[in-house]
C-alpha cells in the first residue's frame, strides 16, 4: 500500500514519518516513534488506554488515523515529566494516593485527567468521575484515582495562585 508523509509535533518535538493511510495514530506512536506509554486495551474506543492529548483535546488514538493527525500537536504520557526529570504533579499524586495497580490504564488515565483539569481546574467528585468515564480501569475501582486527581487539582491551583 502506498505510504504518505506525516509530520507531527509530539511531546514538543517535531517528528515525521511514512505511514499507510489506514495506519492508526496509536500504532504510529507505539511502533514508529517508540512511544509505548499509550496502550491498546480494546478496539472500539471504549477503554481509553490509548488516550493522548491532541491539539488541546483528549483523543483516543486507536480511533484516529495518523493521517488525520497530520500537523497536530500531541502530548503522550512520555511528555508529562518535568524538565528536571521529576514527576508531573498528576504522576506524583497517582503514586501518592495509590491511583494505579497494574499500570496499564495509567498513561491514558493521567493524560485524560490532565485535560480535565485544564478544562475544569476545580472539579467536584461527580465531575471527575464523569470526566474520566471514558477511561476504564480494572484494578483500582477508581476511588484512589479520583482522590489523586482531586489532590492534583488542589496542588495545581495552589501553585497557580502562588505564581500570580
Amino acid at each position, binding site marked *: 500500500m502506498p505510504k504518505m508523509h506525516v509530520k507531527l509535533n509530539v511531546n514538543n518535538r517535531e517528528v515525521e514519518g511514512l505511514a499507510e493511510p489506514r495506519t492508526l495514530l496509536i500504532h504510529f506512536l507505539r511502533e514508529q516513534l517508540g512511544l509505548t506509554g499509550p*496502550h491498546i*486495551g480494546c478496539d472500539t474506543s471504549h477503554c481509553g488506554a490509548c488516550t493522548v492529548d491532541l491539539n488541546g483535546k483528549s483523543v483516543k488514538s486507536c480511533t484516529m488515523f495518523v493521517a488525520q493527525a497530520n500537523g497536530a500537536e500531541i502530548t503522550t504520557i512520555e511528555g508529562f515529566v518535568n524538565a528536571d526529570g521529576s514527576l508531573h504533579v498528576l504522576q506524583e499524586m497517582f503514586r501518592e494516593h495509590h491511583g494505579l495497580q497494574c499500570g496499564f490504564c495509567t498513561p491514558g488515565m493521567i493524560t485524560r485527567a490532565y485535560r480535565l483539569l485544564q478544562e475544569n481546574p476545580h472539579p467536584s467528585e461527580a465531575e471527575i468521575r464523569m470526566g474520566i468515564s471514558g477511561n476504564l*480501569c480494572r484494578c483500582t475501582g477508581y476511588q484512589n484515582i479520583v482522590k489523586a486527581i482531586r489532590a492534583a487539582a488542589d496542588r495545581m491551583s495552589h501553585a497557580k495562585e502562588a505564581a500570580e
Partner: protein
Amino acid sequence: MSAEIESTEARTQKLEGLGAKRKRVEDVRFTQGKGNYVDDLKFPGMVFGDFVRSPYGHARVKSINTEAALKLPGVKAVLTAADLKPLKLDFMPTLAGDVQAVLADDKVLFQGQEVALVVAEDRYIAADAVDLVEVEYEGLPAQVDPNRAMDADAPGLRDDLRGKTSGAHGPRKHDNHIFTWEVGDAEGTERALKQADVMAKELIVYQRVHPCPLETCGCVASMDKVNGHLTVWGTFQAPHAVRTVASLISGIPEHKIRIISPDIGGGFGNKVGVYPGYICSTVASIVLGVPVKWVEDRMENLQSTAFARDYHMTGEIGATKDGRITALRCNMIADHGAFDACADPTKYPAGFFSICTGSYDIPVAHVVVDGVYTNKAPGGVAYRCSFRVTEASYFIERMVDILARKLNVDPAEIRRKNLIRKEQFPYHSALGWEYDSGDYHTALDKVLKAVDYTGLREEQKRKREAFARAETRKLMGIGVSFFTEIVGAGPIKNCDILGLGMFDSCEIRVHPTGSAIARLGTISQGQGHATTFAQILASEIGIPAANITVEEGDTDTAPYGLGTYGSRSTPVAGAATAMAGRKIRAKAQMIAAYLLEVHDDDLEWDVDRFRVKGVPERQKTMTEIAFAAYNKVPPGMEPGLEAVSYYDPPNMTYPFGAYVCVVDIDVDTGVTDIRRFYALDDCGTRINPTIIEGQVHGGLTEALGIAMGQEMAYDELGNLKNASLLDYFLPTAVETPVWETDYTTTPSPHHPIGAKGVGESPNVGGVSAISNAVNDAFAHLGLTHTQMPHDHWRVWKTAERLNLTTV
C-alpha cells in the same frame, strides 16, 4: 563510640517493613508510561501472528485454502492443523487433564476457535491475510445449554472422546460428560434434610463471565537457531509452569527454554491458561527463525481465552425452626465449554467449591458436580477468586438469605446464629477443610454497628410502607454477606497442577554494602509485589525495603514457583520470603557473634542489628554484618549472605469478611443505585494497608461488574452476543460507588508472619452482598431469588413480574 543510636521507632520506620503504608516502587515507571508490557516489546526482524477464527459455534471444517493469503506480499507463513500434526502439536494438554485443539482440524467447537495462524511482516498485512484464508464450513447444531448437554439425544461434541468411558477425573456417563465430583455425606445429608423443620430449595445460577483484564493475552516467541534456545515473553501468571509444559509438549529440553513474564496489565485468572497463540507463535518462530509476536484483540480475548464461573447450582438447605442450619446440599452442572481447560489443582475438578458450607457451622453437607462440554470457549478459571470459591460463597450466601426469608428471620440474625464461633477454631468443616483461624462474630457485629443496621432496617420498613401507599416508586434493599475464602494453594500433599506441587519460593542475596535482591516464583499483575515482598523482608532482615530489589517472572533467574493466582502469593511466596529471610538472619547472627567475640545465644535482635544482651552498646548492624559476610566470616563458614526457601504450606489460609450493601431501586426503570457499601476484611497480618485497601476497592468493583451487568450471552447458534466492550459491561467511574473499608486482624497461626492474602476476598464477598441487596429489596413482595446479573432490564423485569411497574 559511634554517634547516638536512633530510637527503635525511628529505625523501624526507616525500614518501611510490615504494616507500613509504603508508596509503591513500581509506580515511578508506570506513571511515566515506562512499563514494559508484552506488546511494547520490539526485536529486530520480528513478525506478527494473527488468527483465522471460527465464525461458527459448531461446524465441520470442510477445507482450508491458504493460497491467496500466502501470495500477499509480506506474508511469511500460514499455519494450519495439517502443519502441526506431524509435530504432534495439533492438540495440547490442558491444565485440567484434557486436551485442546491448537488449530481446529475437522471440526470447530466454539465461536472464535483458532483455525489458522497467519504470520506477516506487520499486523496490518497479517489482518489482510486473515481475510484471504478461505475456510469452508458446514454448520452443525450448537449445544449451548449445559443442562441439556447430557440428554440422551444430545450428540457428543468431541470426536476425539467419542465412546471413552473415563476421563482425567473418573467415569463419564455421556459423550458430553467430563466428570462427576462428589464430596460429603450423601446419606447423612439426605436424612438431615428430611428431618429438618424447614427446608428451602433453589436453583442458583452463577453466570458465565470473563475476567477481562485491560491488557489482553499475548506473547513474543523467539527461537535462536544457533544455540537452540527458545525464549518466550508473555502474559503468564505462572511462568515456571509454562516452561515445564512447553518443554513437555515441544520436546525442547527445559534448560533451553526461558519464559519471561514482563509487566502484566492485570490478569484476574485470564492469564493462567496455556493458549493456542503461545504454541503457534513458538512453532512459527521455530519455522521462520525470527521472533513472532501474537497479541489478542479484545474480541478475541472475550471469545476465546479463559472465561469464569458458569455454575448451575441446585441448593437445598435445612434448618430447625429456630434457625439452626442442619444440612446443606448442592447438585450442580458446570459448563466447561468445548475443552476442559479449568485451572484447578489436579484433585479438585470443581476447585475448592466444597468450601460452600461457608462461614457457618453446618453439621452435614453433600456436593455433586457434573462437568459438561458445550459449544462455548474453554476456561473456567478462578476470576479473582481461589478456584471456585466465589461460586461457593455466592451459593451459600444466597441459600442462607433464602432460608432466612422462609423462617422470617433477619438475614443478619440467621448468620449470627450459625457463624462458626471463635473457640471452634481450628474448625473442621463437614466437607473436610480445616479453617485456620477466625473471629466471625466480632467482624459481623463491627460492620452492623458501623452501618447502623437496625436503623437501616427501620428506614427500609418506613420506605416499604410509603411504597405501599404509592408515595414513592423506590424500593430499598439491604444485603448482608459473610464470606470465608480458602486461599494459598497449597500443601503439596493435596495440591498440584500437572503433577507440580503448589509450593512457592524465594531466593535472597545480600550485597556487601547491605542492600539485597530477592527473587520469587510468583509474578505481579498489579498487586505490587516489588513493594510488599520487600516490606516482609525488611522486617525480617533489618534492611530498609528501599534497599531491596524484588524480581519475578524470568525463569532463568527466579527460583521455581507456581505463580500468582488464587490469592496464593502472600500465603505461599510471602511465607517463603519470610523463611528465607530468617535463614539470612540466622547466618548474620553467627557472623555478628564472631565479630563481637561472644556466643550466638548472647545476642539479641533489635530491628536492624544484633546487640549483646545486657551490653546494648556492643552491637553489629546488618550493614556491617553484610560486609563482614564477604571478608570476615567465622572459620569453617562459607562466605556470602544468601538464602533460598521453597515453602510448602502446612494448610491453606482462610481470610474472611463481613459486607453490607444498601441499594435503592427505581421500579419503573430498574435503575439500581448502590447507596452504601461497607466492607470489613480480615486478611490476617496486614503488610501494606494502602495496597490492601486498593485491592479491596478493585475487587469490589469487579464484583459490581459481575453482580450488576456481566454475562457472556450466547445465542442458540453459539454466537457470543457481547464480545466487545460496547456490550460487555465493565464499570466506569460513574457506576462505581465509594467503597467504605474496615478491618479486623486475626493472624493465620501457621503462616510465618500470620498473613492470609486479600486480593480476591472483595470479589468473593462483594457479589453476594450486592445480589442479596437486590433480592432483599423485593423480598417482602414475595421474591425468593432472582438470577444475576442485576442489570436495569432484569431488575425491571423482576418488578414487572411482581406487578410493580406502572407500564
